[in-house]
């Protein structure tokens, strides 16, 4: 069969932080995510996609280099693969070396040592990475408590106008990405624009209005909130990052298994879902801007996350484990002319949807359910836009600059010719 490749397409790569597939398009009955669902309705959606390690820096370095953690030798946050493992070509670097202008907005690489304090610029990016100025307040005392004072809480719905700089990091990243899209419309160069959202990573600092989507009485506990009897202790993660937040620390929970009170478990889940809807709204604005810039007809859109997040299942919270809830991620590819019919410039595919006005779609029967891995992003994107697919890595591959330990997922896409994915939902 002819492979569904369209040469010269741009790439808009969107990655959320700590987002499990708690989305309408993945069958979640509660979460409102109409904009990501709309993207899903025009995409190939992988129902069983998994990260290679459920923590930010190792996962991101893995999928951005196309190598597993044993090849990047990054399991924590404290080394840079080019000097610690091998001088590997990254996904954006590969596009840059093939004539693309490559840009990073927000959290794409994990910042710090693991990306050489530069987001791997200039290797990976044509321009220095953009980081929102309000990011520095993320872990400061900006959450209004019941005592009227400011705290560094886990649960932190806010009035944005009262925040330092009167904004939030993901709002700033969206504004910058939209500004770049408008510029790209003018300069007419092939681009690879990566936009990394900070949410739903903790703290749950998000516009308070999103709480209204999730009345607490509608929020259930995890179906299995107890630590399983036969779970080996080595498999358990004690979710220290939650314990350190002021509102959680106040419970004086026993370590390591002491459960969080049920009413607070509900509040954590409520704020996680509200953060997802907040991200969905920003993704909707970003995709609407892609439409407005008349770039939807020639831009691949990828949406994924670095890993998932436990929401009380197995008595656990956060990531840091091998449970499916921590490793499974959303993964979808919109490829104009492949997952939608070939269209003209200016055709609108992604009108903004207000989550307060419209429910999510739920479930996508008939979508690819094969086990796939984020390490396959690199060869998949290369193939989709007609670049040479990096060869499969030999073992070991520390001396090989360009290769991939994943494999292209294009085999799961509809064959070329403008065929539309059969989504089976309204």
């Amino acid at each position, binding site marked *: 069969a002819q492979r569904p490749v369209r040469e010269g397409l741009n790439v808009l790569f969107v990655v959320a932080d700590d987002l499990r597939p708690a989305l309408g398009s993945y069958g979640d009955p509660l979460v409102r995510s109409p904009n990501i669902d709309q993207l899903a309705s025009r995409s190939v959606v992988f129902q069983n996609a998994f990260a290679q390690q459920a923590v930010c820096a190792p996962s991101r370095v893995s999928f951005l280099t196309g190598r597993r953690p044993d090849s990047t030798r990054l399991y*924590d946050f404290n080394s840079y693969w080019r000097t610690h493992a091998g001088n590997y070509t990254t996904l954006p670097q590969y596009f840059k070396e093939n004539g693309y202008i490559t840009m990073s907005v927000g959290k794409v690489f994990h910042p710090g040592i693991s990306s050489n304090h530069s987001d791997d610029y200039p290797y990976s990016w044509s321009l220095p990475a953009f980081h929102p100025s309000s990011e520095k307040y993320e872990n400061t005392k900006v959450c209004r408590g019941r005592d009227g004072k400011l705290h560094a809480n886990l649960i932190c719905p806010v009035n944005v106008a009262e925040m330092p700089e009167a904004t939030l990091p993901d709002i700033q990243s969206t504004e910058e990405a939209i500004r770049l899209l408008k510029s790209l419309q003018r300069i007419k160069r092939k681009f690879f624009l990566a936009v990394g959202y900070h949410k739903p990573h903790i703290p749950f600092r998000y516009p308070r209005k999103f709480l209204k989507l999730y009345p607490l009485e509608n929020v259930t506990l995890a179906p*299995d909130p107890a630590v399983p009897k036969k*779970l080996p202790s080595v498999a358990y993660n004690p979710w220290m990052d939650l314990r350190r937040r002021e509102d959680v620390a106040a419970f004086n929970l026993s370590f390591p298994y002491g459960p969080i009170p049920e009413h607070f478990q509900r509040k954590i889940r409520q704020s996680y879902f509200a953060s997802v809807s907040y991200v969905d709204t920003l993704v909707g604005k970003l995709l609407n801007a892609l439409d407005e810039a008349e770039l939807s007809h020639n831009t691949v859109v990828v949406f994924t996350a670095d890993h998932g997040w436990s929401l009380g299942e197995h008595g656990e919270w956060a990531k840091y484990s091998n449970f499916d809830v921590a490793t499974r991620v959303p993964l979808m590819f919109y490829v104009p002319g492949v997952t939608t019919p070939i269209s003209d410039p200016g055709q609108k595919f992604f009108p903004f949807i207000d989550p307060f006005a419209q429910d999510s779609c739920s479930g996508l029967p008939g979508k690819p359910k094969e086990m796939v891995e984020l390490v396959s992003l690199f060869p998949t994107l290369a193939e989709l836009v007609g670049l040479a697919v990096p060869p499969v890595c030999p073992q070991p591959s520390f001396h090989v600059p360009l290769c991939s330990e994943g494999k292209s997922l294009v085999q799961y896409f509809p064959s070329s010719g403008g065929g539309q994915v059969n989504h089976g939902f309204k």
Partner: protein
Amino acid sequence: RKETPVAFSQYPRPGDIPAPNSDLPLLQDIRVMGYSIRTDDCRCTVWFGFNPNNFTVDVKDIHGGELYFEKSDPNEDHNRYNETLHGSPLSKRCP
């Protein structure tokens, strides 16, 4: 090329018992690495001894195992790893 699609994940630990650095052990503190293979039927994880100085695992040094079957236990609450020991037929259902 006809292999079953699988997904691999891994996670490091400083030791067998949950400790304050179990979530995010520094490289020099990693002593165990849990490797998972996920198929559409099951997830199997084996926690091996790990040497952070030479990045190697000791496959004979097993610190724990997990085996969950997707159809009967989609939430991964019933670990059946130990039932696979001694040649139980369960082991034939998953790698």
